[in-house]
């Protein structure tokens, strides 16, 4: 079982996700560092990600797009704010327009990733994500929803329908 814990803070709109992998810290660092490996897991299978740029240094940026089932593209960007190999990575993540320009009004997600030895050659990865707005989170979830996500979204629709009632 890879997932250790998942902690939500509703007030701060944040998620702390902890997983353990049966691989060394250096090896797990590679899945963030190498864009070809990152592409294998960042996007859901129905919305695979393609990283066009991946300047993996503090102050560097990445640009990527995710391709939906009908060929539609959703663009995004990262800005690395800390890259301390192989233990810590921080970046801002936001949406971009068709030309790859950041869409400021959607807000950004700040992510802090830490990798630690967990004994027996295992690595514990903690990802702390803070969202600026519900809209941003909602839009992110529209891409590549699997069954579990669909269920969560229909729950939201139900709440919104209830709220819209006069």
């Amino acid at each position, binding site marked *: 079982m890879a997932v250790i814990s998942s902690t939500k803070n509703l007030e701060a709109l944040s998620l702390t*996700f902890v*997983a353990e*992998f049966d691989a060394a810290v250096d090896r797990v660092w590679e899945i963030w560092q190498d864009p070809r490996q990152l592409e294998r897991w960042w996007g859901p299978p129905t919305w695979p990600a393609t990283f066009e740029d991946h300047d993996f240094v503090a102050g560097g940026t990445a640009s990527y797009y995710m391709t939906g089932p009908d060929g539609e593209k959703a663009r995004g960007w990262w800005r690395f704010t800390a890259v301390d190999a192989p233990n810590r990575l921080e970046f801002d993540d936001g949406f971009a327009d068709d030309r790859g320009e950041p869409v400021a009004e959607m807000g950004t997600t700040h992510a802090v990733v830490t990798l630690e030895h967990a004994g027996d050659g295992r690595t514990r990865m903690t990802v702390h994500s803070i969202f600026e*707005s519900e809209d941003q989170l909602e839009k992110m979830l529209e891409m590549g929803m699997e069954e579990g996500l669909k269920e*969560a979204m229909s729950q939201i629709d139900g*709440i919104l329908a209830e709220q819209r009632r006069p």
Partner: protein
Amino acid sequence: MVVDQGSAPDIDKVFQALADSTRRDIVSRVATSEFSVSGLASLYAMSFAAVQKHVAVLERASLVTKEKRGREQIVRGNHEGLAKARSLLDGYEALWRQRAGLIVDLLNEKQA
């Protein structure tokens, strides 16, 4: 339950509302049972008017609802106010679970 004039809770208002310790305390108290504004006022070393103001901020953020009952104003937690944030974060957690599964596949493959 009617939350407000038909818009989803505004997260900025929620953040602002929860930035104050008295207001956070009010939210946690009214989440489990209802209180009158005067009942709440008796809990804090501040005036009725000050507590009423705090309640109004929470009400605007859709975190509580206020209802007149006789001469009292009854304050209740508005669970829908935070329900959207919860469902969205549930969805995001599901996304990370899926990513963790894909990472496991990737790591296994490279080791082989």
